[in-house]
């Protein structure tokens, strides 16, 4: 899923300081699963913003809505009837959400309440880790389904580098060296030879390096 964190209250308050009536929109997708932008978090942020505004001696009206997904115009459309009643819309989806809202409602002012971080999963309750960087040409079959693009600080495809020590990456004691894990696994499975294979350069044009990306499925396009 896409993992995000909520922006600081100060940052959000600054964005909406001139508005009296906002629509706060949550998303039932990824951000609900990572407990940052679902119905519950919408209710909590709404309440916190109202209390903060009250402390300033002013009033803030917040209407709460949580839609199925903000990355789908079909669901975004559900907001159209009400959207003009508000001074601005604050989105609690990943970075895709506010952009879809901005495209659907070009005359409205749209703001993001989250900092979108990465593609990953929960390794334990309350802790999420990155697993994929969306490079567009997956190469993890070479590495026993462990991704050095997302999980090696240098995205090395022929690691480990000299900074790997005791299974940790040189950037931090808290970061496992994925190359240490890859090599260990190859050794355990007696397949270390796999890593000697010469491979063509990875084509980074399918990653962000090639500019904004698009995926077209001809069979679905009408």
């Amino acid at each position, binding site marked *: 899923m896409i993992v995000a964190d909520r922006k600081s209250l100060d940052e959000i308050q600054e964005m909406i300081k001139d508005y009296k009536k906002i629509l706060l929109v949550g998303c039932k997708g990824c951000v609900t699963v990572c407990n940052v932008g679902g119905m*519950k978090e919408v*209710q*909590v942020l709404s*309440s*916190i913003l*109202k*209390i903060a505004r*009250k402390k300033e001696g002013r009033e803030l009206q917040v209407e709460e809505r949580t839609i199925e997904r903000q990355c789908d115009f079909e669901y975004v459309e559900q907001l159209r009837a009400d959207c003009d009643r508000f001074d601005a819309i604050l989105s609690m989806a990943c970075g895709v959400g506010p952009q879809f809202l901005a495209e659907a409602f070009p005359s409205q002012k749209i703001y993001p309440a989250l900092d979108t971080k990465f593609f990953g999963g929960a390794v334990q309750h309350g802790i999420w880790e990155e697993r994929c960087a969306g490079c567009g040409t997956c190469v993890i079959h070479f590495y026993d389904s462990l991704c050095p693009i997302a999980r090696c600080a240098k995205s090395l495809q022929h690691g480990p580098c000299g900074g790997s020590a005791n299974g940790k990456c040189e950037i931090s004691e808290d970061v496992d060296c994925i190359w240490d894990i890859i090599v260990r696994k190859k050794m355990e499975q007696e397949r270390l030879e796999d890593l000697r294979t010469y491979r063509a350069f990875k084509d980074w044009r399918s990653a962000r390096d090639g500019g904004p990306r698009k995926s077209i499925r001809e069979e679905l396009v009408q």
Partner: protein
Amino acid sequence: MNETFEPQIVAYCCNYCAYAAADLAGSMRLSYPSNVKVIQVPCTGRVDILYLLRAIEDGADGIYVAG
């Protein structure tokens, strides 16, 4: 702060202990300050962050979770 300021306190009390104690205090004719508003909850585990926020939003100055 003005001398006569009396905070409005919302007390979320567990049905099995704090609320039962408040009930017992009542039957013993003991009084408690009228600015404490007792709300019975089945268990303090039921108290959610939203209960705390909504109480503050609606004018409470402090919250008391007893259980």
